[in-house]
């Protein structure tokens, strides 16, 4: 049903010479090969970010459950509500996170994984800036740099 086996090679093959008039306009380095390199770099960053965050989150969850017998029961008195209520406690600042991690709590490790996940899009914008610079595509590099600046600015805004 799903032709997933196609993977990444088929589209590239199909593209060769299939899109007349696309790369030739204006900017010298907006060529197809350059775009391909940028796409692969961005895709790689996303995959690594996602992979690492899943592993860290899973490890954190495992530690969380290993340290609390009550969590693991399928039936029992332990309820998730104590963990998800309006007053449940979990780290939501860097200092709080460091404190939780120092005590080896799974909760803190999960938060690290979530933070990695949140930072993945920021990282891929950063890779975009560098990639466009390497390919001498100045307009796109500046556009991406602006996006990166706004993102970084928003994180500082959050802290204040």
């Amino acid at each position, binding site marked *: 049903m*799903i*032709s*997933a086996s*196609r993977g*990444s090679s*088929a*589209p590239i093959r*199909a*593209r060769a010479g299939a*899109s*007349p008039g*696309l*790369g030739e*306009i*204006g900017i010298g380095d*907006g060529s197809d090969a350059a775009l391909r390199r940028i*796409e692969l770099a*961005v*895709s790689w960053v*996303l995959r690594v970010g*996602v992979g690492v965050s899943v592993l860290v*989150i*899973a490890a*954190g*969850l495992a530690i*969380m459950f290993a340290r609390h017998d*009550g969590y*693991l*029961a*399928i*039936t029992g008195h332990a*309820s*998730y*509500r104590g*963990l*998800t209520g*309006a007053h*449940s406690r*979990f*780290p*939501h600042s860097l200092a709080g996170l460091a404190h939780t991690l120092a005590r080896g709590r799974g*909760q803190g490790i*999960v*938060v690290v*994984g*979530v933070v990695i*996940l949140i930072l993945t*899009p920021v990282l*891929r*914008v950063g890779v*975009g800036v560098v990639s466009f610079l390497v390919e001498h595509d100045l307009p796109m590099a500046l556009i*991406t740099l602006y*996006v990166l600046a*706004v*993102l970084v*600015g*928003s994180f500082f*805004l*959050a*802290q204040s």
Partner: protein
Amino acid sequence: MTPLDFVVSLALISVVAGALGALVGLGGGVVIVPVLTILYGINIRLAIGASIVSVIATSSGAAAAYVRERMANLRVGMFLEVATTTGALSGAFLTTVLPARLLFVFFAAVLGYSALATFKRRHRAAPLSASNDRIANALSLHGSYYDPAERREIAYHVVRTRLGLTLMYVAGLVSALLGIGSGALKVPAMDGAMRLPMKVSTATSNFMIGVTAAASAGVYFMRGQIDPIIAAPVAVGILAGATIGARVLNSVTSATIRIVFVVVLVAISLEMLQKGIAG
């Protein structure tokens, strides 16, 4: 319900949310917020925090594949992010000024209209073969992708970039103000206004929503809205689902995607209307 039941059941629901989000370019929040608040009785503040995580997970999980397969237009996405991030940032400042309930009703109407417009053009398939849009030409935003459903390479040209930028600014603004609806405005802006093919529109929207969400994720994290025991199963489930959804997009036609999109859009519109009226 024990914590184990909670984590496992939420992860399974998140797989479905991730697959749907990856397919229509909206992120998993559409499903996650009602599921958490209604099914599990979780506080809306924490549900919105989990929704932001789900949007980033859907985006990164699906876009890894979409960018590699060239289903997403990387240049268009990065160009339009200028407007979405600026919108998200200004939304953070305006959040105390603008009446949220009125906004919910207003955007319920906007999304209802765009659902209707998308439904009307459900059979439109032919992309443009030329463009006199100066920005699109200068930045070579035009592209082409291989469509496995049609077994051919489809080239397309981009038009109306200024209108696209304006709509994207509003999309960023709305997502910062209301927490939902970012992708719901992005897809019609690309599919309707800028004339990207529907599949490219949802794939590119997926690529972009992670950045829009990341712009407000810091605020949500610091406010203590991201609870790890909710975020963990959501993130893991959504990432698995988004990987599946990204494969499904290959094999279905643009017309099918438009129909699924319209259904989801109507659901979000009603959700917003309910929030606007009930408060």
